[in-house]
């Protein structure tokens, strides 16, 4: 972590973290927030698996189960995986492109706090009459004013707020990657993680906007008596599904592409080989991103849209299999002929490849429309997308955690505990989800809180539950590992503990707040590896050593986020019976805090500060 700066040594640690605009600290904030939400949603999954362990179980009622199933999906996608990938994007992108920070450090902090308060708004629903219960897809009319309870208002407004934060961050990443690259870091020398992050950010801009529109329509329907989705007044419930899936399908790629990026960093690093077919990988990613907007109807094959539309979208969906296949084979051939080192990061990254293939082939099977009439909304689908999100995204995130942990926190995670975690997680994962394919085929719909005895589903569900418990135990081992390593692991003082290839390993550990004392000159793909082999093992500077201009911290991003939380809560209070204080006061307070903070930021001149030359030299001497 970055060391305290001269300007804020007299301030408390808490204040430092609330006001930070440093991308490395924000990365840690994202990591902590994402991990907490992840644990929460994971615990819900465990509860659901306890309920489904035996037929006609009464551990959870149907209503509670629906709330858990909704919150599990909503949190995992919006509030756990998104911040976790943002944590890595925040930390790694500026380092990998040789920049001192992201393009807009203030906006970076703003993105985090808006996301965080949005997530908080969704979460507090438990204390006000129950969580949303219409599934993470919130299909109307079940989520509409007539059937959905107060929890759905928290869903609509909480996601609206947190989505705003995600959008803001994505725009920041796009600008950063386009504009902040070090000299010589051309687009075709960009590490694959930066490429996938760039494309993910672009997808966010195009996908989260329809979601925001859809949520706004739903909010109008729910709170202000709109009729967009009410068939009785000429509205159409299918419209919501279109809007939702125009967002929802790219969302899958938003989450999985950065995982692809992590895998594309970790596998070359521990194969001691450059990425096989770099150009093909870049273009495959672009094609996947493009196609991801062309396939949303495959989530709606059973809606009855007609055979022509269904056929077109089936073919488009199958087409995605081609670029994905290109990626799979390129990873395999990166490993082929290499010198593989199997530590935890590499175990996670390499086992991702066959696991993801299993999720991919069921994806192609699901694209076959008439057969999808069988799979749709059954446990087969549940198994399929968990192979993608757990076997793909979660393994990618674990690989990234173990890979970048020494750079982020200055010490390694324990290898023994790490490998124990990996095997428990991996075996548990296949136990949980492989069998769910078959459960779907023998007639188990998804999102059911129970199933009747005598349908032959008991044993398979038990196996699935035991697997889920193993995955839960693996996460406990990971937590133990984090705490244990923090106390016992040796501090890392070298730049590059893995003998890796990309620019982030050229920085000193811990990374100083300005990242690079001198902006490096990039001479090749995998620039750090190039200098180690062809140069003298240090990056050539692209500029003379000079004072470094840094941004000041600010509490305003926190205030803007807080204001949006208060505003959102006030909007929800409009739906409450007998609120303690009139809702317009709360709404007004939120609006004033948010817009007041924005105004303050606009009129308050803040030119940042300069780190003097002698201080930089001192720091550089200390760490090297």
């Amino acid at each position: 972590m970055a060391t305290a700066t001269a300007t804020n040594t007299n301030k408390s640690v808490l204040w430092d973290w609330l006001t930070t605009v440093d991308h490395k600290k924000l990365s840690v904030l994202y990591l902590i927030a994402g991990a907490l939400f992840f644990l929460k949603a994971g615990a819900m999954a465990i509860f659901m698996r306890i309920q489904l362990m035996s037929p006609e179980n009464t551990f959870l009622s149907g209503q509670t189960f629906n709330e858990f199933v909704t919150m599990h999906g909503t949190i995992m996608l919006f509030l756990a995986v998104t911040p976790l990938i943002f944590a890595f994007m925040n930390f790694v992108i500026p380092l990998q492109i040789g920049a001192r920070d992201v393009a807009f450090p203030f906006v970076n902090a703003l993105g985090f706090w808006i996301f965080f308060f949005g997530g908080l708004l969704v979460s507090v629903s438990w204390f006000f009459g129950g969580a949303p219960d219409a599934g993470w897809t919130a299909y109307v009319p079940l989520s509409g004013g007539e059937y959905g309870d107060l929890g759905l208002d928290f869903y609509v407004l909480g996601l609206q707020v947190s989505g705003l934060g995600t959008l803001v961050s994505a725009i920041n990443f796009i600008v950063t990657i386009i504009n902040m690259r070090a000299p010589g870091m051309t687009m075709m020398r960009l590490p694959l993680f930066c490429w996938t992050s760039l494309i993910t950010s672009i997808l966010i801009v195009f996908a989260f906007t329809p979601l925001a529109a859809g949520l706004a329509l739903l909010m109008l329907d729910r709170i202000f008596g709109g009729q967009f989705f009410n068939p009785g007044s000429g509205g159409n419930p299918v419209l919501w599904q279109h809007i939702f899936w125009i967002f929802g399908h790219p969302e899958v790629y938003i989450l999985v592409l950065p995982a692809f990026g992590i895998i594309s960093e970790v596998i070359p690093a521990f194969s001691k080989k450059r990425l096989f077919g770099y150009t093909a990988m870049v273009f495959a990613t672009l094609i996947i991103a493009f196609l991801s907007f062309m396939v949303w109807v495959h989530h709606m094959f059973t809606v009855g849209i007609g055979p022509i539309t269904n056929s077109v979208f089936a073919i488009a969906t199958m087409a995605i299999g081609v670029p994905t296949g290109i990626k799979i084979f390129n990873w395999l051939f990166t490993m082929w002929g290499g010198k593989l080192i199997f530590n935890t990061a590499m175990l996670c990254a390499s086992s991702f490849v066959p696991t993801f293939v299993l999720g991919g082939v069921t994806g192609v099977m699901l694209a076959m429309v008439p057969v999808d009439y069988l799979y749709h909304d059954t446990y087969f689908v549940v198994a399929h997308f968990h192979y993608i999100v757990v076997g793909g995204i979660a393994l990618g995130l674990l690989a990234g955690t173990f890979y970048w942990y020494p750079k982020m926190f200055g010490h390694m995670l324990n290898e023994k505990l790490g490998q124990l975690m990996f095997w428990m997680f991996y075996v548990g994962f296949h136990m949980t989800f492989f069998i769910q394919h078959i459960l779907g085929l023998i007639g188990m719909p998804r999102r059911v809180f129970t199933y009747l005895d005598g349908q032959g589903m008991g044993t398979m569900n038990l196996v699935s539950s035991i697997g889920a418990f193993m995955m839960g135990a693996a996460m406990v081992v990971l937590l133990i590992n984090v705490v244990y390593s923090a106390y016992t692991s040796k501090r890392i003082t070298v730049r590059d503990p893995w003998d890796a290839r990309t620019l982030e390993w050229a920085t000193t550990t811990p990374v100083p707040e300005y990242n690079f004392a001198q902006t490096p000159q990039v001479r090749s793909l995998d620039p750090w590896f190039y200098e180690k082999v062809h140069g003298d093992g240090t990056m050539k500077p692209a500029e003379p050593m000079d004072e470094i201009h840094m941004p000041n911290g600010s509490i305003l991003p926190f205030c803007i986020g807080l204001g949006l939380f208060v505003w959102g809560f006030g909007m929800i209070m409009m739906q409450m019976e007998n609120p303690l204080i009139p809702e317009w006061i709360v709404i007004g307070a939120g609006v004033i805090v948010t817009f007041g903070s924005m105004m303050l930021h606009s009129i308050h001149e803040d030119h940042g500060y300069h780190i003097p030359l002698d201080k930089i030299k001192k720091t550089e001497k200390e760490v090297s």
Partner: protein
Amino acid sequence: MKRHLGLLRLLPLTAVFMLLAGCGEERLSALDPYGPQAEWILDNMILSLYVMALVVIVVFALYFIAVVKFRKKPGDEELPEQVEGSKALELTWTIIPVFLLAILAVPTIWGTYYMAEEVPEAAGSSGGESENGEQSGEGGDSQNSGSSSEQQQGQDALVIDVTAHQFWWQFDYPEGFSAGNEVYIPTNEKVWFNLTSSDVIHSFWVPALGGKIDTIPGVENTMWLEANEPGVYKGKCAELCGPSHALMDFKVIAMEPGQYEAWEAEMASGSASSGNGGSGESGSEQETSDNSSGEGVSTVSDGRQAFEDQGCITCHAVEGQGTGQGPTLSNFGDREKIANILEPTDENLEEWIRHPGDIKQGNNMPGFPDMNDEDMNAIIQYLQSLSAKENMNQ
């Protein structure tokens, strides 16, 4: 040896297929199909499994060889060759998948149209039928579809209107009567369903007979099913629709065409129910003389009276068209299950009438916890006596 690991992975799946092939009385599994649509689906799923197994085997083989063969040896610090890539290989793994996908795309499109077949026009219209002829000529998988559509050429197809409700199903027959939660169809004939919903979105799914389709308020969807054999086929709601979504089952009961016609006539005549409108008294007398239930004449006709007095009849029709408020009970005595989840015993029925909300959370039926035992018994006897099957068999 590593080559076979991919295949080994599939073995358990195959074993489960075989295990599940022999099912019990109520047919549920899609792996054990009983109609042309379900058979088509299973055949094509297996086709896609073969194609996909090919991909999985290649990837797994490459992966395991790489993992075993290219492990770093201790002390070996030499850098491996830094290969940039290979155009030939990239082309290979672009083109081969395209061919594999093309293999799957053809039946996909064919099947999409096969299952989207519209209700055939009653007579003389050749459009629909000639299309059927083309389709059945095209694919070897579905000889059944050809024969069944030929059968229908001479007669009107059976079209049943389905309305889904939280958490029960209403089936309206063209002859002007309704059935609740259990839909009767003739075997070896395509039966069409026009589906909609009265509240939220549900999804109509009978795994052993075919695919599923959503029931959406304000939208009318159509699908067809065909059963090859008489039997009871379990159906389920597949779209999250509220707290009791998991309990929103239904049943498709397929009968030989002759038997079905008898059932249909019985339901249409309304004599399955023990009383109706103006001729209530005579109806109940007829009913009780038909049923030699031990409780005697008075209980059943008292039951009919109690059924009206307690207000049951406001929501539950006992003959003819359903009300849409609650399931039609015209043939309640034939039910396989009460509310699709309880065994049809008197005790369970009483429990259901007194506390329906405890059994199906969030359902719209008000409970009658304080109903006196006399009325309760009478209503139970009355409901259990409502049978189309018994009348039909005489």
